[in-house]
């Protein structure tokens, strides 16, 4: 286009450029003030995004600046102590969190995958109970975490389960809290597998379950796993429901899953922060940094997993 334009005699070029300018002015005048406000609007939007980014950086910076003097191995290997304030750590809480997470994973993988497979592959959407289940899961995802704490207090700690204030109760509570998000993520992963995979398998004589188990599920596993990992990341940071099911007891010994008191990383951080001595506030900040680093590693792994195994059909 520009080549042929340059070959024209100068007069025609000027005429064309002039005509272009006239047309441009003519139409631009309608939105002329839009030019200034457009730039203004763009900068306001970028400012809004910047504030979010600054917030993330500031939280990291705070945790590092306040907690940097306690970034040592005592932080991980020492238990809580009110006497040796300078060397107290999170070991008991880390063990509590690990136990809780193990329980959460054991609960959410079968239940999350099972519910998602049922809703995507076997449920008849015209039946009212299936629609009820779907609506219910959507709603459950929006229930405040503290309400799950009340559920745990009423059902797991006391009758009917009567577990007491133990790590198992915390684990079950957190598992139910993250279950809806696992189901929603797993459904997305299953939905992303094209129906031709299922239909091809059925056409070759596989039963419905064989087709789902051997063809659809393997293709959906990376996406479902990503959902589980993100749920685990969320479970590590949840403190509010654990406050109600006993994680706030001050324990200095490693927890037993089914008896005795337990603690969890975010809850012990909260506890340390509430103490008046400065050492404990520094310790809380160091704990936050530890938790953020762990979460960062987990989330990066989930993103890597999604990118590595993501298939476009």
């Amino acid at each position: 286009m520009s080549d042929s334009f340059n070959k024209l005699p100068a007069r025609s070029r000027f005429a064309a450029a002039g005509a272009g300018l006239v047309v441009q002015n003519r139409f631009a005048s309608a939105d002329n003030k839009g030019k200034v406000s457009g730039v203004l609007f763009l900068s306001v939007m970028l400012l809004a995004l910047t504030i979010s980014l600054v917030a993330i950086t500031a939280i990291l910076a705070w945790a590092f600046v306040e907690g940097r003097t306690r970034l040592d191995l005592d932080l991980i290997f020492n238990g809580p102590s009110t006497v040796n304030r300078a060397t107290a750590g999170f070991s008991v809480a880390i063990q509590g969190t690990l136990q809780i997470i193990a329980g959460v994973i054991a609960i959410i993988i079968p239940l999350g995958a099972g519910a998602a497979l049922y809703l995507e592959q076997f449920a008849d959407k015209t039946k009212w109970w299936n629609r009820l289940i779907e609506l219910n899961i959507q709603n459950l995802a929006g229930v405040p975490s503290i309400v799950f704490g009340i559920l745990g207090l009423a059902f797991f700690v006391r009758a009917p389960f009567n577990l007491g204030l133990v790590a198992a109760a915390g684990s079950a509570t957190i598992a139910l809290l993250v279950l809806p998000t696992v189901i929603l993520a797993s459904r997305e992963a299953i939905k992303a597998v094209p129906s031709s995979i299922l239909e091809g398998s059925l056409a070759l004589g596989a039963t419905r379950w064989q087709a789902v188990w051997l063809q659809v599920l393997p293709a959906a596993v990376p996406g479902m796993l990503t959902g589980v990992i993100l749920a685990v990341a969320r479970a590590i940071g949840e403190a509010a429901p654990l406050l109600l099911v006993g994680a706030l007891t001050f324990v200095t010994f490693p927890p037993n899953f089914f008896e005795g008191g337990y603690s969890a990383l975010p809850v012990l951080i909260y506890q340390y922060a509430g103490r008046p001595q400065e050492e404990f506030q520094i310790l809380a900040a160091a704990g936050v940094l530890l938790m953020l680093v762990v979460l960062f590693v987990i989330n990066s792994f989930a993103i890597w997993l999604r990118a590595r195994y993501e298939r476009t059909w």
Partner: protein
Amino acid sequence: MSSSVVSARSGARRVSLRAEHPHYGEKVIIAFLFIAAVISVAVTTAIVLALLQPLPRFFSEISIVEFFTATEWSPGFARPQYGVIPIVVGTLMVVVTALSVAIPLGLLSAIYLSEYAPEGVRKTIKPILEVLEGIPTVAVGLFAFFWLRPFIEYLTPWLPWGGLFSTGVAGIAVGLIIVPLISSVADDAMRSVPRALREGAYALGAGKMRVALRVVVPAAFSGIIAAFVLGASRAVGETMVVLLVAGAGSPQLNFNPFEGIQTMTAYIASRATGEIAVGSIVYDTIFAVGALLFTITLAMNMLAIRFVNRFREVYD
């Protein structure tokens, strides 16, 4: 070849396409999957039961009128009062502040991501926003308590700051937490507005900003409202930030954002951690406030789901 077809057709045996075996094992597996799905309904039922069960006992001692109209909340104190209004006002103040921070930030981010950002920028920024959403709320709360509140007080020393806690700063911190939620839901809504609407506006001579604000935003309006409602619901239920930054004291009715206040969630969290006797009236208050909290968030979530569905109906 053709003869075999003919013979098959003329043969007396009719070929059944049904499975040769009844596959009972498969029915068992599908029953298990169904049970896994039904457990979510059981969880909701259990929540409702857990919340409702202590209520008859509670409301037989405290009149329901007093609960909803009295203006002092001090269960467990020497002269206990059971008016829920102060902690509802506390929650409301946090939510209003949070939304006034999160709505502009979230909506502007969403407009940028959906209408302006090149694909590469979008692919970098979205995970970063997800990081903000994934930061544990206890971390955000500690940051806001130890740094943000003193920092804002330093910037604005003429404001009537009182004590260590601040409802307004708690609201700002909660607002930062819900920005990613609002921006991702609003972004999804705006991206599913059909291209033709934008092209039509461009053809009529509209500029980029005009298309974004006058065409895309109104077209995605119900999805954007759903984003706001979901954000508000999340802010109502937020616990750790509020507990840390707004404190859990001050049972008095208080509208001052520069002082601390108690919210519904902070009350539940602070109450349940103390040693309280099961079956006492103070223990029951946890469930009464929890039931109120659950009802409010449930209503908001249902509203948001309806908005999203209405939006889907228009464009799908």
